[in-house]
């Protein structure tokens, strides 16, 4: 494996971690909580896409759309049924609710699917293409492209649409947003729906590259954590860059050290970032307010 091949493969995985980190950052910024269920939402997206493809044989984009809609509905439901009731409580309460949903979703997925491993068909199964001397499968190429498009759309959404601006306002100052007539409950639901829809989309993208099984989420969640921490936890471009870096580091670890070291590359990233630059590459030094 040449370094270029490793880096290109890292970009494909990295774009998935970037999307996980993106969703984590979205929810963290609005509700000040880490969504520990993001990995399971990804898994749901993968399984919905798989089931739709397998049982209805519709074209791939429709399966993708079904997964995204299901993910968005799931996210909004989590927010509306549970999180909204405890939104103003101790941060442990909120985090515990997301842990609860993470376990619940995993358990529900295990009831019909068991702990078996499913293989998700690739969208395009043509020969790998060569870019700058590195081999890359079309599937990886699509993954990177979709991740970049999602980031761009998100950027435009925040800049151009009223809903996006309401979200930003709520993120910056909840009380202020309330005063100018924004309904924070609606914004919270929207944020969760958006983050979960991105999560489900990530699942459909990740499933062909990885394997599809109910426990797949926690691994992606950890890598997403590493990416978000690297990006400063509050920055959308930070999450994207962080994701790509984590993906590349992971492949380099696998290529030059060992495959078992690959599993812990993300922990090393998290710990190293927190020791060297705790507010991440794009974060600001935190200010304590009394």
């Amino acid at each position, binding site marked *: 494996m040449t370094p270029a091949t490793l880096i290109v493969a890292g970009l494909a995985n990295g774009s998935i971690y970037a999307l996980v980190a993106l969703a984590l950052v979205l929810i963290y910024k609005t509700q000040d909580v*880490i969504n520990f269920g993001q990995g399971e939402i990804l898994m749901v997206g993968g399984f919905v896409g798989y089931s739709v493809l397998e049982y209805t044989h519709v074209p791939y984009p429709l399966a993708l759309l079904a997964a995204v809609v299901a993910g968005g509905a799931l996210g909004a439901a989590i927010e509306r049924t549970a999180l909204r009731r*405890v939104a103003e409580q101790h941060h442990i309460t909120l985090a515990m609710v997301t*842990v*609860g*949903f993470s376990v619940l979703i995993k*358990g*529900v*997925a295990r009831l019909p699917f068991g702990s078996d491993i499913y293989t998700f068909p690739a969208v395009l199964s043509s020969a790998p293409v060569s870019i700058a001397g590195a081999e890359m499968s079309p599937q990886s190429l699509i993954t990177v492209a979709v991740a970049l498009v999602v980031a761009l759309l998100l950027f435009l959404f925040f800049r151009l649409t009223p809903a996006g601006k309401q979200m930003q306002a709520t993120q910056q100052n909840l009380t202020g947003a309330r005063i100018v007539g924004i309904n924070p409950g609606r914004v919270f639901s929207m944020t969760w729906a958006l983050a979960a829809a991105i999560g489900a989309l990530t699942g459909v993208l990740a499933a062909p590259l990885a394997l599809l099984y109910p426990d797949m989420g926690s691994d992606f969640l950890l890598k997403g954590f590493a990416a978000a921490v690297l990006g400063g936890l509050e920055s959308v471009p930070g999450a994207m860059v962080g994701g790509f870096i984590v993906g590349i580091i992971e492949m380099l670890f696998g290529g030059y050290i060992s495959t078992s070291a690959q599993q812990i590359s993300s922990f090393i990233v998290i*710990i190293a970032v927190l020791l060297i630059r*705790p507010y991440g590459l794009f974060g600001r030094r935190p200010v304590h307010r009394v």
Partner: protein
Amino acid sequence: MRRRILALLPWLALCAVPLLTNGYSQYIINLILVNVTVITGLNFLLGYAGQFSFSHAALMGIGAYTAALLSARVGISFWIGLPLAGVASAAIGLLAAISAMRLKRVYLALVTVAFAELLVWVLNNWRAVTLGTDGVNLPVPSLFGWDVDGDKRVFYVVLACTATMWWLARRILESHIGRAFIAIRENEILAQCNGINVPLTKSLVFAMSAFYAGIGGALFALVLGFIVPASFGLLTLVTQFSAVVLGGPLNLAGGAIGALLLTALPEVLRDFQGLQEVIYGVVLIVCVVVMPGGIAGLLQHLGVLPAEALARHWRRLPTPAAPPSAADGTP
């Protein structure tokens, strides 16, 4: 004095339990007692001090492995390995906590997630020391010629340790340290303004919680006789979270109730992991949203369970000198 004797009575009554059990139910009861210790430790951290940490199950693994490896591979007696297990866990737990302490509180959860995965990875992959997935057998320990073999004998050892740890927990929580924990949970800046050394107290609660996890882990190794890294993963952690939340955070008796209710569940549903996870998930969500005081809070509300000693002392104070919201036991 009379109250102290009364407090001893339930423990004395427990000594008669082996007369009523067969091998399997005795084994389950032993596991429950082990979990009472482990969950008391988690309750310090999660309930009293309000720190969200994911490393408790992994630290329990450190305790279990310390005791088992020292005994099986080095030949150090289990009775020395048991406190060493607590100390080893406390040291490693502190390491994670201190690195995260300087940062915003959300990083604590992230660091401990990474840390817990790393510890389990080490247990799995450092085969030269931990024997990896093959697991470790704990030799039967012997106390002055009395072999601790069989579930009934193990029971008395576990009971003595659990009772000691329980007593210790009460003493700590009724002292100014216990109040400092709650003050930190409610408002760190306010706690600091009241002369509480926040970093020191946080380090203390992490070390104590990890110490309980380590002792619990060593006892777990004693009860099972054989340990593998998989016992200290995510599912165990979720069970522990559920036990704290279901029984009642901010309440020692609550931890015991949670341990009592949730220890048997993985045994009953051994072949139905999906169903187990659904139950834990529902317990976590429903308890946190609808019943934040857990079962203990409910029982206190109904007047069945007396309020914790900590809260009783507080109510006797003539002026609201203590943080007011901590006294009612709800987050």
